């Protein structure tokens, strides 16, 4: 059972971020920093990242942003420099370019970037203060003389010039090798600056909030789903944010179809991932606890990858979760319509079993279900669902109240047919269903 789709969730997360409107990196290094970033489980680390974002946004002038746009990912060139390989003019140009950007951004107050001013001096011997580069005459009087002597193209003379140029290149590489490490740090720090600015811009454009970090509870006021809200806005519709709080317990979520159960689970998962990758989160106010992993299953049948049947994939996912729970991992589990891939009789038993396990082990978890009769001592919430006057309302979204309410009932709402009729399902079919 190693084909579990749960393990790829960080890749999906980066895909989501990179595709998000409002998230704009200036450079390829920034992108590399994002994809290389890790899921943080240490409270201090996250808070420090938030502080760093804040201070980067404070210092970022237009000049800094412009410099970051010019940033090229020259990790390969820096590796050659470090290995003592002779570097050619294109690579020297790249190093000079990086060093100039590093100096200008550092001078804007980004002091975590090492001072590589000496590199600029070495690669700008005439103090021209330009980005261009070649093996300057001033590096060698012999070179200057050889070049002066060549007024017409001549292969022989060029060979002599090339020989002297190579000597200069060796000398430059020897001088610059001492700066390989500071340059590497400068490149990563510039990339991190780019990433942090992209994150704060993203937070601003989407209205994300800096969460408080708590030890044992999560409380969201006005939690929303970035993608769903955007697509609703495009259609001129309003998104209804929800308030929710939970601790290290199981919450069973019931409610009508289209009541926003899946969106709730996705929003919770996204908010958790965003927080632990050092982003602000989609809510008006948030207090969050930290987990070692976020495991979300079900939903839109995307588990049926790798040629597994949907049931096999579901069992596989459950197995992964159970093993993680048994190993004592502090995980956040979100199971959307658990066991929907099999018959209701056994499906109910599966949900009951899973719910018992989550409740007994005090796993912070959400399970959504349409099955009634899920028994046990745990918290239950329900989507309020269809408004009384739903039929009188225009759009389907105007008919539904997405807010959550605590309930003690193990029964589930039976509104599927009413929703189907509101959606405009065929009357003859509905007739046949009812009789």
């Amino acid at each position: 059972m190693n084909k579990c789709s749960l393990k790829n969730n960080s890749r999906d997360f980066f895909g989501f971020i990179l595709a998000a409107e409002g998230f704009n990196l200036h450079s390829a290094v920034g992108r590399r920093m994002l994809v290389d970033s890790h899921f943080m489980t240490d409270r201090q680390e996250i808070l420090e990242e938030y502080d760093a974002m804040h201070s980067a946004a404070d210092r970022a002038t237009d000049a800094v942003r412009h410099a970051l746009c010019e940033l090229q990912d020259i990790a390969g060139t820096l590796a050659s420099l470090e290995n003592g390989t002779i570097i050619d003019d294109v690579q020297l140009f790249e190093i000079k370019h990086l060093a100039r950007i590093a100096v200008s951004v550092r001078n804007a107050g980004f002091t975590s970037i090492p001072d590589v001013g000496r590199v600029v001096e070495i690669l700008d011997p005439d103090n021209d203060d330009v980005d261009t580069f070649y093996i300057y005459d001033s590096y060698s009087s012999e070179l200057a003389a050889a070049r002066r002597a060549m007024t017409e193209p001549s292969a022989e003379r060029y060979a002599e010039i090339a020989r002297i140029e190579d000597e200069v290149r060796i000398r430059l590489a020897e001088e610059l090798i001492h700066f390989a490490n500071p340059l590497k740090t400068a490149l990563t720090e510039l990339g991190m600056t780019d990433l942090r600015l992209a994150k704060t811009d993203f937070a601003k454009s989407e209205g994300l909030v800096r969460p408080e970090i708590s030890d044992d509870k999560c409380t969201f006021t006005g939690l929303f789903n970035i993608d769903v809200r955007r697509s609703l806005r495009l259609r001129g519709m309003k998104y209804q944010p929800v308030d929710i709080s939970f601790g290290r317990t199981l919450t069973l979520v019931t409610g009508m179809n289209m009541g926003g159960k899946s969106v709730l689970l996705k929003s919770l998962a996204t908010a958790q991932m965003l927080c632990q990758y050092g982003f602000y989160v989609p809510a008006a106010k948030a207090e969050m606890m930290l987990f070692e992993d976020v495991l979300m299953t079900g939903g839109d049948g995307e588990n049926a990858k790798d040629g597994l049947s949907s049931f096999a994939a579901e069992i596989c996912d459950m197995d992964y979760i159970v093993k993680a729970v048994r190993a004592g991992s502090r995980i956040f589990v979100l199971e959307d319509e658990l066991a929907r891939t099999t018959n209701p009789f056994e499906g109910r038993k599966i949900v009951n079993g899973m719910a018992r396990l989550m409740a007994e082990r005090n796993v912070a978890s959400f399970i959504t279900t349409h099955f009634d009769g899920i028994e046990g001592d745990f918290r239950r919430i329900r989507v309020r669902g269809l408004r009384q006057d739903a039929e009188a309302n225009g759009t389907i979204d105007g008919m539904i109240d997405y807010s959550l309410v605590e309930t003690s009932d193990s029964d589930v709402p039976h509104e599927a047919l009413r929703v189907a009729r509101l959606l405009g399902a065929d009357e003859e079919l509905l007739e046949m269903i009812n009789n």
Partner: protein
Amino acid sequence: MIFDLDKYRSVAIVGMAKNVGKTVTLNHLISALRGSGKRVAVTSIGLDGEGLDQVTRTAKPEITLYEGMVVTTAEQQYRGRQLTAEILDVGGRMTSVGRLITARVRVPGKVIITGPADTASLQSLLEGYSRFDVNLALVDGALSRLSPASPTVTDAMILATGAALSANIADVAKQTKYICQLITLDLVDDELRNICCRLGRGVWKILNDGLAERCGETALSGEIPEISDGVKALYVCGAIGNNFVERLRMQQKSVDLVVPDFTKIFVTQDCHALLQRSKVKLKVLYSSRLLGLTVNPWSPRGFSFDSEELRQRIEDSTGVKTYDVMKL
């Protein structure tokens, strides 16, 4: 200087086939521009200027550049340069032969030039040249590719032709004349141009009252719009081929057939000849400035024509000033 380049910011040098002396023409222009005060940049579209012709394995002249000139070529070719140059810019976009390096020549010498692979990238490169204080860009067109000569990319062009086209001197003249005809096609009138300029890709009917009606995605689909009485012109924003032109002609309706420029016309000579005698008038939105022709009397297959005879015949049949590259 045999060609008058003063008024143009960019000139394409295109060949009708391989081995027609395009590179010789380019080298001639470059050396003539040396010390002229023009701030010249040289690039190409696709691979060119390689030491040996990759297709026919015949010797090819290299591009020689002089102090102060700007060149854009791929990383791989830049590394093999035989000149000293100051790197001005390293492009972010990868091509099949690495990134594009733009550099200013410090000490003269030779280099192989491989510029952008497509016209859109070439266009943005040319636009960016002003940053480097360039006021004339020469673009070496690749094998059988007229696209860089599109007036939307370069301001003017020089066409190279020669014995490589055919062993029959009359045939060389005929083929060259046809391309010149296309290059110098009539422009649409201002009124029609103003309408067409605003339209996007696709096939459009322009009605007598000036309204435009989209009637297809492309002229290559096989669907031919019917020309009814109210239609004064058909504008194809894209390529046209024989099939489209033939079936339009057969409708025997008086109509202007408009394309953006001559590089969009993929119609054979015979088909074009019939069209000329029909009621359909082929016109362009943007015309190209043909500065002149060069001929190479030598064929890579081993034969050659008399230089003066070829030059004269080409000049007579096209009405465009023609030079022998070997005698430039």
